[in-house]
């Protein structure tokens, strides 16, 4: 049906998007790679000698690199664990018939739409503050000493805040997947008198496995880049306790004005994200039939 004429027209219609994205990908990335080989400080912008792998070496052997890598893994892993388990349980719950289903769904989804700077500040001040926070009040009511969340358990506190924001996403995706479950199979299992637990493990969980994988991969991409929550709560501290890779690059490049070492860190982040992205792309590509 498509003539040569329409094919040519289609190419022209596609070109702005393709060219822009190509430029967006290649130009800055090439520049980052280039900068990462220079000794380039904004405090001393005229003089940018070539240093090869020097910045990478400097970045990787810096005192904050390994703590930041480990924190990054904890943040990604911790949030994933909470949101996947919580998301599956919530999706199972919301899939049941009950009164006010629509409203509860709206309540559960809300955190996803709260901008990260707001949720971080609200949690930090109104809930986790050791003097005036709601958690401190609750602790006092039950006779416990209030916990100073962001200085005593800073990493866990950030994980809690971020998990709260991403729980709705996981729930929503898993609920959507759950609703596409073949009801006949469930009914057959019911007839056979299969207990709920075995129904869950032999029918529901396998059905959800694909959705879970998608949630894991997509969230990982976003969670590797956690920034605003750290920026407004702990500034990466105390010490290195909540500095992740993204925040470390920000500290090097924007705060420290060291473009060279910041770029090296940026490239390391790109490599890390790409490892996850390859799996994600395969999954989505398989699903796409043209």
């Amino acid at each position: 049906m498509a003539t040569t004429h329409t094919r040519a027209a289609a190419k022209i219609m596609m070109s702005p998007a393709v060219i822009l994205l190509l430029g967006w990908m290649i130009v800055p990335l090439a520049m980052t790679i280039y900068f990462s080989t220079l000794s380039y400080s904004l405090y001393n912008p005229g003089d940018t000698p070539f240093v090869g792998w020097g910045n990478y070496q400097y970045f990787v052997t810096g005192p904050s690199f390994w703590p930041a890598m480990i924190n990054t893994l904890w943040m990604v892993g911790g949030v994933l664990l909470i949101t996947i388990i919580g998301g599956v349980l919530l999706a199972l719950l919301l899939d049941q018939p009950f009164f006010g289903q629509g409203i509860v769904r709206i309540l559960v989804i809300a955190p996803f739409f709260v901008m990260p700077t707001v949720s971080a500040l609200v949690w930090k001040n109104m809930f986790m503050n050791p003097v005036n926070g709601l958690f401190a009040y609750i602790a006092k009511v039950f006779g416990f000493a209030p916990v100073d969340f962001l200085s005593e358990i800073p990493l866990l506190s950030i994980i809690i805040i971020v998990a709260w924001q991403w729980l709705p996403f996981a729930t929503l995706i898993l609920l959507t997947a759950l609703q596409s479950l073949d009801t006949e199979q469930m009914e057959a299992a019911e007839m056979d008198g299969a207990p709920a637990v075995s129904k869950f493990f032999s029918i529901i969980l396998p059905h959800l496995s694909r959705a879970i994988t998608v949630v894991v991969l997509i969230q990982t991409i976003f969670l590797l880049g956690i920034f605003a929550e750290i920026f407004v709560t702990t500034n990466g501290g105390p010490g290195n306790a909540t500095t992740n890779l993204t925040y470390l690059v920000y500290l090097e490049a924007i705060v420290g004005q060291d473009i060279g070492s910041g770029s090296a860190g940026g490239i390391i982040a790109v490599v890390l994200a790409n490892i996850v992205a390859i799996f994600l792309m395969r999954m989505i590509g398989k699903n796409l039939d043209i």
Partner: protein
Amino acid sequence: MARAISTRRKWIVTVIAWAIGLAIFFPVLWTILTSFKTEGEAIASPPSFLFFDWTLENYQTVQERSDYLRHFWNSVVLSLGSTLCGLIIAVPAAWSMAFVPGRFTKDILMWMLSTKMLPAVGVLMPIYLLCLNAGLLDTKVALIFVLMMINLPIIVWMLFTYFREIPGDILEAARMDGATMRSEIIHVLVPMAVPGIASTLLLNIILAWNEAFWTLNLTTVNAAPLTQFIASYSSPEGLFYAKLSAASTMAIAPILILGWFSQKQLVRGLTFGAVK
């Protein structure tokens, strides 16, 4: 079959679900409630839940002291601007990929998706320097462009999946009936594409509104949207809970409402159609 049991079960599920739903929503609810309290009541112990003197004073103070409206306007311009520019570029692209798929269409789509996987921090330095040298740091133009580029793959993908659902048969039928190219587009294609385009618009406004990495790094005063406005409360000023709450409520209210209308698009847009 087993009516009585299922009604009782329904009530139990109702209670559990509402309890959990309210618990998850509680931080938002508490912020909204606190925004109507006086500072004294905001930190009162025991905390007052509903029975306090409701006041609008905080909203007024926030506007006067930190110019909420200017930041709000910046947020509107940035999110609407980047989304609309993105749509102008993405609609023709998605259209041609959906209706005239070629040998490389799938590859192009996958490649576009791959640009979304590029961590922001990997391109922060060049973008920052380019903006700095071009005098575009803290301008809306720069930020609209950046936000458009980071959301463009999502826009193209969402539109593509919507357009694919428009059956080609209808177009051919219209042509058989003697519809001209122009009337085919206006009367047949556009009405079917509008819901998809509207959904895409909605989700992308939300994503751009809440985007914090680029707005925090590329703006300071002039182009600063609400993300930056709220970040300024991370100073000791954030300890004025009632004012922080009022500012927060004003920053999230528009998008919370939009978000509730676009739950389905969220699934579709953010998973690139991998979960249905």
